[in-house]
Each structure stands twice: as C-alpha cells, then as structure tokens.
C-alpha cells in the first residue's frame, strides 16, 4: 500500500524550493516558443500544466537529441588525441511530467542498462528524482489505459502529485528515493487533508492490446504494411517526440584542428537508416520500415525487455503530418485473426 501525503496550497513552488534546496536542477514543462518542453524551472507559475501533455517528451532530459561523447584534437602532424567529455555533475529532478512519460523511463532504463551500461544516460538518470503530475484531462489521442497504464499510474515516478480541486495536492510516495525526499521535507509533505479527491482524467480503453503481439508474431509479411506506409510521409516526427523511442546515430564533426564525436537521435523511418555503404538496404521500402517500427514497439521490445515500447501518450498522433493514427492501426491489427497465414509469403 503506497503512502499518501498532502501538500498545502502552492505545491509547485514548495516542491521547486525543496528540490532546489537539495541541489537539484529541476526540469519542468515550460513554454519554448509555441511549444512546451522540459526546461530548468525555478518559478512554479512558469510550469505549463494546462496542456494534456508537453509537446517534447521527457526523454530529452536523459537522452538529449544531441550530445557529445568525446572530443579530439589534431596535433601539428595530424595526430589525433582524445579528450573525454565532461561528466554531468548536476543532479536532475523532474517536476510536472505525466505518468506516461515517467513510465517510458522504465523502458529506456532497460535499453541503456541491459548488458552494457551507458555512461551518458546513467550519469543523468541515476541520481534523478521524478515527481510526476497525474492527469485531470486527456484527449482522444491518449491511450495509456489500453496499455495497462493510467492517468494516475505511478510506474517510473518517485512521487506522484495530483493537484486537488480545493487547492494543494495529494502526493503518492512511490519509491524509496521518493520516501526519503518526502521525509526530509516533512514541512512540505504533510499527513492529511480533508476535501475533494483529485480529478482523474477519463481515458477509455480503446482496444485489446493482448491481440497485438500474436498477430505480429505470425504476420511479418502482410498487406497492412503497404497500406499504412502509403500515407506515411517518412519523416521522424513521431519517433523524435515519442517518449520511448531511443535509436541514435554517432557522427564525427570536425572544425580545423578539433572536433567531437556526437550521439544524435535517429529514426528507423528514414530511408537511409539501414542502408549499407555497399548500397544494399535491408529495409528499402516504406512498408518494410513501417513494419519494423510496429514490430519493434509491440513485439521485439517485448521479447527482449518484457515490456512494450509505447506508453500511450499519443504524441505520435498529435504530430503526424499525414494524419496517421497509431490507435487506429492497433485497432485494425487487433481485429484481425492471429493465425499464421497458410501460404508463407517472403517479404
């Protein structure tokens, strides 16, 4: 049974101050031009929580769209020397992510720590404290409940904050880290409250997710891939704004006598993603790339990490310039019989 605490009045500022007091740099959903993105925050009223979700995903905080892996310089004879990158020393806290984004971190933790442990992801993630804010509203692109999550789910959070209609917030203590933080700030996290409970958004279950993997297991070759990929523009918007997508590229950038090796996000929808230097491309068509995308999220990731690479946040549908809907695609799959086709057709 998870412990429950309450914050009186201005929970945003009191949390920010408590976190800052412990030396955390706090990232919260902030306005950046027309969009909402996780940025350092010190003023509670700057947090943008009146949107269903931030435009940019939380993953940016731990897996930035671009980061330096190492630097190098060239000596007078052209001989290269490496400089290791600076290690991030700031502790990161997140205040105001939604439960879906917090749950997505659990998947990313597995990717970056299964087998080898990724130094760059971990140096940001290991010390981090996640204070998510539950959802009181949703839209028709949210489908967390179809994936076993919820607008008040706590997976991936250290503390789950739910603002109360009468002011203040209810806080569910989720993890040991969260418990320690709440205990250290007993003046902020009080024992009880009377008053109305938090509003929890109503996110209807839209499909039977258990129908998906069996169909994917048996239908590597199928007309569906061609049908979806016709409409797809072939950009990377869905992947980049997805809180669980993690594919990356590594490149060298040089300017005269120095340069750096960087890691940049990348997307399996791009035509050159798997193209060999020889010219051979294992996934040469939009259909084969769309197949890989869906397979990866709902089959391969499940087989390797025992969870889906999707949290139902809906961003892919909000950003898709071609109007594709993952909910609709999954519903189409869920409605199909899962038996292996009689005639195995090679792709």
């Amino acid at each position, binding site marked *: 049974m998870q412990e429950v605490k309450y914050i009186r009045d201005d929970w945003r500022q009191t949390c920010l101050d408590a976190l800052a007091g412990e030396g955390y740099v706090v990232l919260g959903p902030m306005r950046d*031009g027309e969009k909402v993105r996780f940025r350092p925050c010190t003023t509670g009223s700057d947090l943008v929580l009146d949107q269903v979700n931030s435009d940019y995903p939380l993953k940016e905080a731990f897996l930035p*769209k671009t980061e330096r892996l190492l630097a190098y310089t060239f000596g007078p004879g052209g001989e290269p020397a490496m400089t290791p990158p600076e290690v991030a020393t700031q502790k990161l806290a997140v205040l105001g992510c939604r439960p879906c984004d917090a749950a997505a971190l659990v998947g990313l933790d597995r990717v970056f720590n299964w087998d080898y442990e990724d130094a760059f992801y971990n140096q940001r993630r290991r010390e981090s404290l996640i204070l998510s804010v539950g959802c009181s509203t949703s839209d028709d*692109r949210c489908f967390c409940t179809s994936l076993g999550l919820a607008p008040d789910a706590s997976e991936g959070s250290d503390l789950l904050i739910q603002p109360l209609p009468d002011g203040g917030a209810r806080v569910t203590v989720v993890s040991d880290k969260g418990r320690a933080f709440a205990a250290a700030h007993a003046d902020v996290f009080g024992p009880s409250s009377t008053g109305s409970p938090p509003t929890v958004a109503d996110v209807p279950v839209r499909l039977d997710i258990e129908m998906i993997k069996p169909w994917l297991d048996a239908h590597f070759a199928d007309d569906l891939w061609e049908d979806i990929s016709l409409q797809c523009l072939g*950009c990377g918007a869905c992947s980049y704004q997805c809180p669980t997508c993690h594919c990356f590229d590594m490149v060298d950038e040089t300017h005269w006598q120095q340069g750096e090796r960087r890691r940049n996000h990348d997307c399996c929808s791009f035509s050159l993603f798997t193209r060999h230097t020889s010219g051979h491309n294992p996934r040469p068509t939009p259909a084969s790339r769309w197949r890989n995308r869906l397979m990866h999220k709902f089959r391969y990731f499940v087989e390797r990490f025992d969870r889906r690479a999707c949290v139902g946040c809906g961003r892919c549908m909000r950003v898709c*310039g071609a109007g594709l809907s993952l909910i609709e695609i999954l519903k189409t799959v869920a409605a199909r019989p899962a038996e292996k086709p009689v005639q195995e057709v090679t792709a």
Partner: protein
Amino acid sequence: MSDTHTEIQSGVRAVAARLLSEGRVKTVLGYALGALNETVPCFIKRAEDTKRLVWNARCFHNLATYLPREHMKKHFPMAVVVKGCDRRAVNMLLKESMITRENVVLVGVPCGGMGEPLLHKCLYCEVRKPEDVDEAIPGEPAPIETPREGRFDSVTKLEQLEPDALWEQWKGHVERCIRCYACRQACPLCYCKRCIAEKTQPQWIESSPHLRGNFAWNVVRAFHLFGRCVGCGECERVCPAGIPLGEINSKLAKTVRERFVNYQAGMDAVTPSPFTTYDLGIDNDEGIL
C-alpha cells in the same frame, strides 16, 4: 460544413467512382475522415470505397507531395484531388520532370480556403479554381474578404529588425528543430532521392540537431526552394517544433517577385524558373518573365 462543401464533396465522389470503375486510374488519392474525425489523405482502390472521400475546410494536406515517390509508381495511373496550391505544386513537378502528365489524372476542386480562421496563405490565394485539370469539379469557391494586412507585411516587419534582434528571435526557433525532416517530407518540391543533408562524401550539412546544424539545414532547404516554393504552407503545418517556416519561405517568395519580375512558382507548367534555368538569351536585369 457548408452547402458548397457538400456539393463539391458529392462531385469528388462521383468523379472518383467513375474513374475507378472505368479503369481509367488504379488509385484515387483524396481526403477522407480519419478515426478521430480529422481530415487525412487517403488512397482509394475500389469504386465502392469512394464514399469515404470528403471535402471540407480541413483538407490541408498537399497531396502532390506523394506523386514523385518511387513506391507510388505501382499505384499509377493515379487520380489526385488538387486545390489551387496543390495544382501549382504539380506544375512545378511537371516542369522539373518529376512526374509524367499521363500518369496522373488531376481532379481540380474549387477552394474557399482552409482552416477556421482561414490560413494566411488562403487570404491571398490567386488560384481558387485550379486550371488545366482533367476533371474540374463544378462549384464556386466561397468568397474571401480582402485582408487589411498586405501579404508580405509580416516579412517586412522582420526585415526592419536589427540583425541582433532578428538573430535572437530566430535562434530560439531554430534551436527547437529536431531534424525530423517533416518539412522536407511534406514538401512536394523536396523530392531528392538523397537529400543534401544525407550526403557524407562530402558532408555539406551537419546532421546533429544543435543550433549550428539546424541553421545550416533550415537555411539550405530554404535556398533550395528559392523560386520553386509554391507557398502551400505544409512545412509550417507539419513542423513539430513550431518553427515559423512560412516566414522564411515568404521572405524568399517576396525576393523572387522583386528580382524576377513578379515571378511566382508554379502558375503554369512552362514559364522558366529563375535559378534553375540556364539561358544565355535572358537578360538578367530584365529578369525572367
């Protein structure tokens, strides 16, 4: 949806059904309602499915963008529903030999503008009834009030900013770019099989989505569209970073008009494009007419 919309919608459905059942085309590319009631592009193969086609004030997509794609070829001949701006894009694709006229059946739709309130581009549209189409859907586009602001007023305001101020404003926008290339993929004129941003021998544009790389990408793309962009505004609509790409393209469109005697891209399929036309007979001071 207005009565005009309903009429036009019926017209589109009837034409599409006829083209498919006569075997004139293999595919009809038009607009339909998606699962969440938004209007989306759709590819229709059977005459009985043409009742899915719609026409309303949210038919934003420029369907011409699908035409030059390699994997579309097996779906030709294809009928495409085109608004005026889309028709201009088709003209450019024809001029640049990216599609063969015989492979497409153009279904021209009279357009009263998209969006509520109307999109900026629609306020100044000069091609409300697309010309030189194979099937012209009958109907009169709803009248559009002449806007008070001039078409390039916002661009002029930007031109008047001090360079430092302009940089500050645009730095914020460009930093947010995530190099998803949605702008490129949505643009009918960005059809290169291997984009300049994807070349490595040599590498012209840094692929990293930092400020420097993003500026290089966005500026080079704008330059590659100089005199070619038809102002459909799709790039700005699809940008997940909310970058006002339309301003850049408007600035360049304004420059093209000033320097090349009122040239506008895609008004027909024959006028030589500035920047992509090499002709010693043209007097550059006179510009291209």
